């Protein structure tokens, strides 16, 4: 057994031992407040067992291991339905960026340790009502105020802001230069006066994203994490941190096996649906697509293991998997006919077709819309030109509205 396989086996055994306390079944019927409390205890248990901050420096409470161990653990962890997602953004991007760019090392260390143990949660304040894909077009501004800054504006789609203690934020500090050059990166205290968090109820019924309003929120200059006007580079660094995260060829929806089971149970025209050519074709096509993504992911892991940099094809996973999941979920509802009306808003997207279906549009938009991902592949991988960009090279305050 390789070292990595030994690591996987040990992690899998530990995770299995945690499942009765923190897993899918233990969470059934809990209110969100109770689920979050359970999540905090699970995060602490991970920390105590050496599974928090797996690839983070030891000096910050991490384990000092590699990215491979982290991805390996995540892939195993995904199987049990633990309440770990409350910390996914926090530990995925804002806190690593704080470690990299935070200026007060003692403060940073204290925050990182609390975040790793589930005591504090961080959010990422990037998207705005004026645009999500066009990050550099943001309008929230910070103006000099004494020795510090004063923030005014609005962010949106901020995951878990309502539970967050801190956030990282990109704001405009100079509207007189082209849009990428007038941004600065800060951290903020989410409990500070002038910060208002308002949850947004999504189509599927849950409310994990928020609007966040900033009204004369005052911060000192030691909150700054980039040079003044140098915020865009740190924002991009934030988004680049987890390029090869543990992926899911099911598009974070149900496994294809569940569709096959359904097709074997259900009758169409008096015969099992599994014998219907239309259903068979979709099963075959989805299997071929998912096995291709799985093979891409395995190859990426092998390359990292061999000290190589994986190719850009890893970026296909979300694009291809989520939109396929959307259509397959529609077909699964079709298959159930009038039994398909049944909807449980607390059901898991990974196990329930209606839940998978109603939440699929979020998956196709959040974290880079399908269209943005296609642009990225076309421009960064294939070298095709950017679209017509009338805002290019023009000071932000002169861009035609």
């Amino acid at each position, binding site marked *: 057994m390789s070292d990595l396989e030994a690591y996987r086996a040990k992690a899998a055994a530990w995770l299995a031992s945690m499942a009765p306390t923190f897993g899918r079944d233990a969470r059934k019927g809990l209110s969100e407040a109770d689920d979050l409390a359970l999540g905090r205890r699970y995060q602490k248990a991970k920390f105590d067992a050496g599974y928090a901050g797996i690839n983070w420096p030891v000096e910050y409470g991490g384990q000092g291991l590699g990215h491979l161990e982290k991805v390996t653990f995540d892939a195993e962890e995904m199987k049990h339905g633990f309440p770990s997602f409350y910390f996914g953004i926090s530990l995925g991007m804002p806190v690593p960026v704080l470690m990299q760019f935070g200026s007060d090392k003692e403060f940073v260390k204290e925050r990182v340790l609390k975040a790793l143990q589930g005591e504090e949660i961080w959010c990422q304040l990037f998207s705005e009502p004026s645009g999500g894909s066009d990050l550099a077009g943001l309008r929230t501004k910070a103006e000099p105020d004494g020795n510090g800054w004063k923030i005014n504006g609005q962010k949106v789609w901020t995951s878990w802001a309502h539970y967050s203690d801190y956030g990282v934020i990109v704001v405009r500090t100079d509207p007189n230069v082209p849009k990428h050059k007038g941004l600065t990166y800060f951290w903020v205290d989410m409990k500070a006066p002038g910060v208002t968090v308002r949850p947004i109820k999504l189509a599927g019924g849950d409310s994990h994203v928020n609007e966040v309003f900033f009204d004369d929120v005052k911060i000192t200059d030691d909150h700054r994490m980039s040079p003044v006007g140098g915020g865009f580079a740190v924002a991009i660094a934030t988004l680049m941190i987890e390029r090869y995260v543990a992926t899911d060829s099911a598009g974070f929806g149900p496994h294809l096996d569940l569709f096959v089971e359904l097709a074997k149970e259900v009758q169409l025209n008096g015969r099992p649906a599994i014998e219907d050519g239309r259903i*068979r*074709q979709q099963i075959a*096509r989805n299997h071929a697509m998912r*096995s*291709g993504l799985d093979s891409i992911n395995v190859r990426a892991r092998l390359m990292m293991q061999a000290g190589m940099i994986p190719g850009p094809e890893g970026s296909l996973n979300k694009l291809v998997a989520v939109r396929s999941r959307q259509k397959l979920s529609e077909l699964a509802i079709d298959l159930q006919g009038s039994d398909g009306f049944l909807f449980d808003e607390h059901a898991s997207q990974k196990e329930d077709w209606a839940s998978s279906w109603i939440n699929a549009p979020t998956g196709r938009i959040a974290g880079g819309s399908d269209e943005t991902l*296609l*642009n990225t592949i076309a421009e960064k991988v294939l070298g095709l030109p950017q*679209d017509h960009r009338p805002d290019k090279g023009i000071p932000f305050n002169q861009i035609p509205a």
Partner: protein
Amino acid sequence: MTILYDEGQQAIATESRRVLEARVSKDALLPLLEATGEYHRPFWDTAKEQGWTALALPESEGGLGLGLVELGLIAHQAGRSISGAPFLTSSFGAAKAIELFGSDVQKARWLPGLASGELIGAIAFSAGPDVLPGRPDVTFASDRLDGTARGVSGGLAADVAIVLANGPDAPVLALVELAGVQRSAVASFDNSRLIADLDLSGAPAETLAVGDAARDAALHILALQAVVTAHEQTGGAEVLMEIARDYALTRRAFGQPIGAFQSVKHRIAELYGLVELARANCVHAAACEGAADFITAAAAARLSATEAYDTAARDCIQIHGGIGVTWEIGLHLHMRRARSLAIEQGSSLFWEDVLVDRLAGEAA
């Protein structure tokens, strides 16, 4: 086996690409479309000279002892250059049938020639839309075949064929020498595939497998060939994606390169996705030759590669506009090849059923 190519495998890919790009051009391929019974001999000479015919056969039989991964790499490059003959796949399939199911005498008689490329093999399993027929049109009795094997790729030039025939009690996988067999060329949209109807009436034949074993053997040979063909399809799709990209970068309309329009650039980005999924499935399938889930992996490779090549042919021509449909630019070479490869080794309809039977636990 790992799905990461080692240095030797990477060298095979680089060298085969270099050789084929130097020796195969569309100017040589276009006239073959209008001639029945002709194929691009320099391609086959290259395959023999480079040892590609021997690559995946055992050393004991005159081969080089490598496997599907290496042959797949060659096929990928052959697909990029629209290879001029179907034998890279069909001779391999015939040789594998003899290696796996033949007697020592049969191996000694045929394998060295197939490995050197001096002899050419063909596979005749299907009867029209029926890829592995339960009751084949060709019958087998008293060591002789009767009937016609239809639409056999490479059949016009082959020296030996592996035939799925209807025996007295059960299907038979039979080996037939084609020296005295009457063949008629099928006028095809892709003539250099040398497609022929073989009139097997009275041809002496030898048994390789009988009954369920014959069907299982035929499916296994078909799956081996499907993985080779899937690499070829992926190579074709890949080069079409590059051609589309290059054209979109240079062709201008409304004051800008057409690649700046999202309707065009997204189409090419989607091709990238199809090519990479097909490539990943191909490598996985080639690496699991001999494993329990080989048929499943072969089916996935075949399905994604067929989709990639057909879609790339369609979209690459569309992106070119009017020039794309001219004879001279030759994109129709790919469009034709995409379809002929989609039929050879069983269409997607066949492989979808093979795959779902296995996923649903209904495999024979």
